[in-house]
């Protein structure tokens, strides 16, 4: 018997007596006997914390792709960045961790102001003035962007570059089952979206990724021009770390920015909880999904913060709401604000630059290997895809034996042929380098890959 319940037997008796009852069962007497569970739940008995901790070592020890066992070169939207002790300590403060949604602003100024600072940072990184307080992740953020584009144009056609992360595209298709959106994927040629072959007439949105998921830097003016020519919204999914040095979504003329905020202080965490970044132009403010915090004053005229434009939200507008989002990812947004505070202006630029330097150094070494061929000849930022001439999933397992997590196999992301890659995807590996990778680690990567493919 283990739990966190304070009730003593004497107190239970006292409380029941107050209610004129003599057993806890009486509290459930109005539930129809036909559906009552008589034999208890089919679960083991409770265990003490140390016993459960021992049980969990079965899980932790069966994971081989951990930081202590492997040097991480995997990316695909999730990056192994430095998270310093100070960020872990501050973001782990229980006032942030165990708070509820800030519906009572008088006792929630801590979370509200942190979100306000987060929103300011997202607006600056995206170059767009209206951020929200976070969404679940980038994939569901894209879905919200499509819904916003539909709201703005009343159109259903969503023209999406195959350079958008395959998982984001798949999520867009899943939710289109409900909204009825028509998803049109635009293939890549040499790693660059071939916009010329698509009919964007009546499109609600033109969607691109910067860099695209293969790491390639596409000139976004073409996508923007296509959106303008067709009165569609331009939705840009962008790497927020890139914004340290590369053009922002706003600079490219985007109407909506979505991004994955994991790189700002959140561990790899097997994919979640992450952080859906979202910002848009002022024209779309009333269609913003989820919560937004605004500045105001209290009754004593002190600067205060509060969730605002609440009339858009599900608990008030119900079936006419712009989105059903309620719980979002506030703790990750607060974490991002703290991490960005730690990095500062110079730190963010330096991290972005070092990622680019490391990735280019590794790329140059890899393409020297016989049989390794770049998927694209175009410029890239911090990530790139290469043909190995061998099954990429098998190569990853071989490299793992030498303590290197060699990347992400494209086949694992796309589950089959994909318009982003011309031909077979099975030998394509996506490789990234963050500011945490040393030259020695990168050199070792090259050596381990050579060995794995017999070169």
């Amino acid at each position, binding site marked *: 018997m283990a739990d966190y319940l304070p009730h003593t037997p004497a107190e239970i008796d006292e409380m029941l007596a107050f209610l004129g009852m003599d057993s806890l069962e009486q509290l459930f007497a109005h539930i129809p006997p036909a559906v009552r569970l008589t034999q*208890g739940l089919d679960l083991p008995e409770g265990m003490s914390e140390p016993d459960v901790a021992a049980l969990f070592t079965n899980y932790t*020890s069966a994971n081989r792709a951990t930081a202590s066992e492997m040097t991480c070169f995997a990316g695909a*939207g999730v990056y192994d960045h430095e998270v310093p002790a100070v960020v872990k300590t501050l973001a782990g403060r229980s006032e942030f961790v165990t708070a509820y949604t800030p519906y009572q602003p008088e006792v929630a100024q801590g979370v509200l102001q942190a979100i306000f600072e987060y929103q300011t940072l997202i607006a600056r990184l995206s170059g767009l003035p209206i951020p929200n307080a976070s969404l679940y992740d980038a994939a569901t953020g894209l879905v919200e962007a499509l819904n916003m584009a539909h709201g703005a144009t009343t159109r259903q056609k969503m023209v999406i570059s195959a350079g958008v992360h395959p*998982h984001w595209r798949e*999520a867009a298709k899943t939710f289109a089952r409900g909204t009825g959106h028509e998803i049109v994927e635009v293939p890549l040629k040499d790693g660059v979206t071939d916009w010329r072959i698509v009919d964007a007439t009546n499109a609600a949105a033109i969607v691109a990724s910067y860099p695209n998921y293969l790491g390639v830097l596409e000139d976004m003016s073409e996508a923007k021009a296509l959106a303008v020519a067709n009165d569609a919204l331009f939705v840009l999914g962008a790497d927020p770390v890139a914004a340290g040095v590369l053009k922002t979504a706003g600079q490219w003329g985007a109407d909506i920015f979505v991004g994955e905020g994991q790189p700002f202080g959140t561990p790899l965490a097997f994919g979640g909880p992450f952080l859906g970044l979202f910002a848009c132009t002022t024209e779309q403010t009333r269609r913003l999904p989820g919560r937004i915090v605004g500045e*105001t004053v209290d009754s004593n005229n002190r600067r205060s913060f509060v969730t605002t434009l609440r009339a858009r939200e599900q608990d008030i507008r119900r079936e006419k709401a712009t989105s*059903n989002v309620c719980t*979002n990812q506030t703790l990750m947004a607060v974490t991002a604000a703290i991490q960005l*505070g730690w990095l500062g202006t110079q730190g963010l630029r330096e991290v972005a630059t070092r990622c680019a330097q490391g990735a280019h150094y590794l790329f140059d070494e890899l393409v020297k290997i016989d049989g390794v061929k770049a998927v694209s000849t175009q410029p890239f930022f911090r990530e790139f895809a290469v043909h190995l001439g061998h099954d990429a999933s098998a190569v990853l397992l071989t490299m793992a034996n030498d303590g290197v997590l060699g990347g992400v196999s494209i086949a694992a992301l796309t589950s089959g042929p994909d318009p982003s890659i011309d031909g077979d995807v099975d030998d394509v590996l996506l490789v990234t380098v963050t500011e945490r990778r040393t030259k020695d680690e990168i050199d070792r990567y090259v050596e381990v890959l050579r060995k794995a493919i017999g070169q």
Partner: protein
Amino acid sequence: MTSRALSGGRAASAPLMGHETEPTIFEMSVPGRSAYQLRTTGVPSTALADLIPATHLNGDVVNIAEVSERDLVAHFTRLSHRQFSVDLGMYPLGSCTMKYNPKFCDAVANDPGLNSVHPGSPAELTQGWLELLATLEEKLCAVTGMAAATLQPAAGAAGELTGLLLMRAYHSANGDPRRRILIPDSAHGTNPASVTLGGFEVTTVPSNDRGLVDLKKLKASLDPDVAGIMLTNPNTLGLFEEEITEIAAAVHEVGGLLYYDGANLNAILGAVRPGDMGFDIVHMNLHKTFATPHGGGGPGAGPVAVSQRLVEFLPGPKATRMDDGTFAWVKPPRSIGRVHGWHGNAMVLARALAYIDVHGGDGLTRVAKYAVLNANWLRHRLRATLPAAYDRVCMHECVLTATPLKNAYGVRGLDVAKALLEEGFHSPTVYFPLIVEEALMFEPTETESLQTLEALAEAVERIAQRAIDDPDALHRAPQTTPVSRVDEARAARHLIPTEDAASR
């Protein structure tokens, strides 16, 4: 009872610091100051301009803030002192199940063996995670009486929409597309919002004079165009839908499906399972029932469990136990596809499994019993001050009404809620459900003690006395909190969502 000294959940002694506002981090910024430290890598520091064409560079337009580590720590620590939390005191927020979040579950999830794993790693290298997820799925199915589950949805609302897409896929596969979803008038707002996004239309079902679904009117709404019904049981009034088997039979008879909104699952753990009541789809809010911390508004997790006939449509890929004892990612044959970028909020899922393992079947059953005991004790204790909207045995929460205070002294439910903040308690949920006037929805949860409940009741009674003595003071409450009532209308009228908008 000397509840003042004994009340563990009453936060009136919290050292919230003074009444000065905290500057923003941007106001603290000093050009040239920095906190970051990075690894020495030895990677050639080629100029960026030599790696990336100039058309892509932004000209250093993005500015963050420039602070020292010491300033950063002071700033966010001060902000944290301006924030209520479960760790600080009682949070009787109805419908939100703000129970104590065991620290052990956080520690388990934060183990590098779990949290340093990249989600795109091959399954062969992440067998521990796959086993953990498959095990959690099995245990959630045991709790709810369902056949299989997806762990991908990131929150309750995401679970709802996933459930509705499953309904759509099921009916479409039968060549029987349907348009309407029935929802009681007491439902959570996420329900109708999700229905619209699922491509359905809402038909509202009225409650009867006992606060339950009106079975006759429900039956009158049923026809072959009804795709299903979304129910919370116990409902948002904290009352158990006693005619649930009749409701299930009627909906199933016209070919509709039953969706269980698991927001109130805490009330029925080990007492009754949604599957046994006839539900086909169940979402669970792990950040409520399974005590994962709410993070100031997320992250949550909203797994969706289904009955056998819907298993083949579940989102995927799913962590699956194979015959040889290994685990693999398997996509159900007619899967609706991904509803999350990766595998769901994995760290939240790990915490929930730890919580389930500590409690076991016996502990979870006690959780529901004591949650219901606490809610009924509070309802009964406060009946002279704030009467219950429906005064009979409730489940894990009770909806009380401030109508008597309003009629006699002009003191509204919101005033009571705000005054409670001064008393060291978080407010209950106000003005929900919509069908109760001046509603104050209290959910004490099972982790609060009798002493804390008594302290809460005494605080409510003091507020009721103040309503008689000085109602105007209550309209001005709270005054002892970091800020007093904020001007919400002004925030909406003149939107300032960022520091840059503020300075314009």
